[in-house]
């Protein structure tokens, strides 16, 4: 049964002063199976983060619909948990308070909410840091807390917006395998956004490629790698082939960004 169905989502923005309209996302559709890990990659500015915000219900699309388990989505809800980019923990709350934020927002009493998130804090590897403020944690640890906060509301779908973008290369690799371990324990449906090709392949069952603005889905690549995946799977020939295919898809889009057709003629 599909967990998430996105049908013909289009997003049109109006520029503030000129009132000129532009299309950020153009008729994007996808169907995501329950418990699968799907990643969207695309050049920067292609609208992939916007798409995720639409799925979360933070912004309304100009046209099109989102359904989670058959229910139409118009606002944020506990069936979806968002892992934001770095530094989205509330700085004045401890790890424990941050992780309990979603549950408390839904009316769960503070004590009970904090009790319930303790096992999650342990699962993401932050035991012992419950009472630290975000500024006392490394960025990697902050993102672990971020994941725990999203999991705490027990969502059906986990939405992840380039959660490892701010990490150094080594920490990022480590966090990727940690994420797979956590995903394996929870088996949530995951919709993940990144611009990192190896991250997309390593994590996902399926990678969707978005074009430059206006964002459209231009490729849908199944990832046939077996799980569990050790990190050195990134150095196998099949991994390299997948990376090549995604890069071929993206290269045209990025070239278009860097040197638009008009500019190229002048060269």
């Amino acid at each position: 049964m599909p967990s998430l169905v996105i049908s013909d989502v289009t997003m049109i923005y109006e520029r503030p002063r000129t009132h000129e309209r532009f299309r950020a996302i153009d008729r994007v559709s996808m169907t995501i199976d329950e418990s699968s890990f799907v990643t969207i990659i695309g050049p920067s500015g292609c609208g992939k983060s916007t798409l995720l915000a639409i799925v979360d219900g933070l912004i309304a699309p100009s046209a099109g619909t989102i359904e989670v388990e058959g229910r139409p989505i118009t606002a944020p809800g506990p069936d979806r948990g968002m892992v934001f980019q770095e530094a989205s923990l509330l700085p004045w709350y401890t790890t424990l308070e941050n992780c309990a934020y979603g549950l408390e927002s839904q009316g769960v009493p503070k004590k009970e909410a904090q009790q319930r998130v303790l096992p999650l804090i342990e699962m993401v590897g932050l035991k012992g840091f419950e009472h630290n403020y975000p500024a006392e944690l490394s960025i990697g640890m902050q993102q672990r807390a971020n994941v725990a906060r999203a999991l705490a509301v027990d969502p059906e779908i986990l939405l992840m917006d380039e959660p490892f973008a701010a990490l150094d290369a080594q920490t990022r690799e480590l966090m990727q395998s940690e994420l797979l371990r956590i995903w394996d324990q929870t088996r949530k449906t995951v919709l993940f956004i990144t611009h990192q090709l190896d991250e997309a392949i390593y994590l996902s069952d399926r990678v969707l490629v978005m074009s430059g603005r206006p964002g459209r889905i231009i490729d849908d690549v199944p990832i046939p790698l077996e799980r569990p995946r050790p990190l050195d799977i990134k150095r196998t020939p099949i991994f390299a082939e997948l990376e090549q295919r995604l890069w071929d898809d993206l290269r045209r889009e990025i070239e278009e960004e860097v040197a638009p057709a008009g500019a190229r003629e002048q060269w």
Partner: protein
Amino acid sequence: MSTAVEPPGSAVRRSRYRPTARLMYGVAGVLGLLGLWEGVSRAGLVQTVLISRPSDVAVTAYQELTSGPFWGNVESTLSVWIVGFLLASAIGIVIGLVSGVFRYVRYVTDPFLNATNVAPDLAFVPLLILWFGIGFRFRLVLVLFIGTFYVAINTLAGVKSTEGRWLRVAKSFGASRMRTFRTVLVPGSLPYIMTGLRQAASRCLIGAVASEFIAGNKGLGFMISLAGSFLQTSTVMFGILLLALLGIIVSEIVGRLERRFDSWRI
């Protein structure tokens, strides 16, 4: 615990922070200046009626501290200042928060806040005297007026500075408007609110003293201006030192309060 073993003769790069040195140099500076002041006036290089001398100020201080009228003056200034500051804080925070949260309220309050920002506070004095006379009410209103503005404008800046990403988090997790206000907007604005309170505390003291200069019949400002017109320079100097001391105490208190509310900042 392990001890680092250095090769003999190593030059260890030390921390350059010296708290005792800071205190010693500070005290030495003050004592040095007092000594210089005393010396210059004793040597007859300047007239004592113009700047008095530390030993005279000390004598005056002793006389004042043991006299009844002096404490009445202190009480008068402190009461205007404290009552004015507390009321200004409450009103300023409410104006700032409400203006920050509701866009249309902000459109209304913005011109007023901007106008009071550019107009010197004391320019309102004649008007206030006209409305409130020259008693306690006038002094309180002046202090209140000055303080409210600083608190309001900083609180408003705090709400506006609250980062969109935190508001998005609250929205994403389904926090109600009231909860978003309580868990994001207020704590997010708090550093700015504290800045506003610190500014307001010292400006309110200035306002309290100025109001006594202009229209008082008691208070430290009145004491200073009266002493000045009778050429009692020692009393003027004593008053100035006392106000400086008060200012230091207040900024210390507010600073401690600030750190207490800011423990999450590293």
